[in-house]
């Protein structure tokens, strides 16, 4: 790949003139300029899919809100990251994530180290305006080392992506639609019976909440270790 031939764009993000390569996303350029855009499903080192809608931004000339993690920059683009409308949508989306499952932070293994919990605080979500659904969902403790607690899952699909893209096992996948959607192992078999799972635990480490955790952890004890990811994705690039 001839990197020198890649087009350079200048654009405005949050009233600041920024420059980026045409193959970069709004989020990547914003981060280079230290402009904060909230994210939840995105994790550096994995592909971006725009699932969580936290990084929605306004682009001048378009009525649609664009997910910054998958929208490529364009010459002359004017991007708004913070507006009342965006703040309201982000809060509402977070609230829906909380109301859709049973996120009982106080007794969760990741209490105090949870991406969902800390983003809620950062964006000023101090209560959930819609009624909780309280779905009856399962906890899969069949794996000898790990637990999948679907009460805490926000369907970010980081587990699916790390398993497919980094480990290459594709044990995790998604089943069902809407509020009935679930992450599954193999063809919806118990995790402990999975034939494709290598037991590497990467899914556990990238999970933003307490949905995937190591066994034997009490409330607040599950710390996620994600430092391996930039290294492995760099190695993957080198190997190409």
């Amino acid at each position, binding site marked *: 790949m001839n990197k020198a031939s890649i087009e350079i764009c200048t654009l405005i993000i949050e009233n600041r003139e920024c420059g980026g390569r045409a193959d970069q996303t709004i989020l990547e350029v914003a981060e280079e300029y230290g402009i904060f855009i909230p994210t939840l499903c995105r994790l550096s080192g994995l592909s971006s899919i725009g699932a969580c809608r936290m990084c929605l931004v306004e682009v001048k000339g378009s009525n649609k809100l664009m997910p910054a993690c998958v929208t490529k920059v364009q010459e002359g683009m004017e991007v708004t990251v913070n507006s009342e409308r965006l703040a309201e949508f982000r809060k509402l989306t977070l609230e829906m994530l909380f109301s859709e499952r*049973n996120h009982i932070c*106080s*007794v969760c293994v990741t*209490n105090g180290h*949870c991406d969902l919990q800390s983003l809620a605080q950062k964006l000023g979500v101090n209560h959930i305006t819609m009624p*909780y659904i*309280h779905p009856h969902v399962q906890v899969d403790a069949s794996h000898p080392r790990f637990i999948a607690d679907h009460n805490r899952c926000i369907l970010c699909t980081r587990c699916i992506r790390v398993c497919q893209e980094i480990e290459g096992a594709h044990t995790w996948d998604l089943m069902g639609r809407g509020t009935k959607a679930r992450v599954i192992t193999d063809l919806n078999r118990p995790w402990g019976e999975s034939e494709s799972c290598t037991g590497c635990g990467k899914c556990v480490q990238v999970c933003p909440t307490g949905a995937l955790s190591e066994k034997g952890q009490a409330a607040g004890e599950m710390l996620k270790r994600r430092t391996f990811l930039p290294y492995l994705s760099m190695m993957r690039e080198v190997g190409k």
Partner: protein
Amino acid sequence: MTKAKAAKARVATVWLDGCSGCHMSLLDIDERLILLEEKIELVYSPLVDAKVFPENVDVALVEGSISSEEDLHKIKIIRKNSKVLVSLGDCAVTGNIPSMRTVFSLESMLERVYDENATINQQVPTKVVPKLLERVMPLHEVVDVDIYLPGCPPSAENIFFAISELLEGRTPDLTLTARFGA
């Protein structure tokens, strides 16, 4: 009543379906309780003798979720009689641990607790104790809430800050210090 006494803010604290941990955290403000005592009159609380929630309450701090018909009855009176209602702690704000039973039907939950897991005198209580609601709710699902103070429990620091700000007539900004779960 002296003039100084009349100027005191009328504060109430209430314990609905919670573990009283929020009240323990309130007591954890330690020596600053004396500072508060100079500014407030505690008109209703598990910590004082009043049995009926009084009228003209300036600030009501309510711990716990709405889980029974009694809670439902109480919160409506509390709202009617209070100028500022503070949702104190995760049970009041989110339903928290009490709400974990909502994923099961009330009937199956009662059977599990009072029949299946009981070793003697198996029966679901129907007398004296208030009837449980099918669904456990945070306060704001039933009444309007003015201030949300999440945490399990909220820190003594946050409780003291919230009360102090309210006494000064300001709305406490707890965004940076209070979150669900702690």
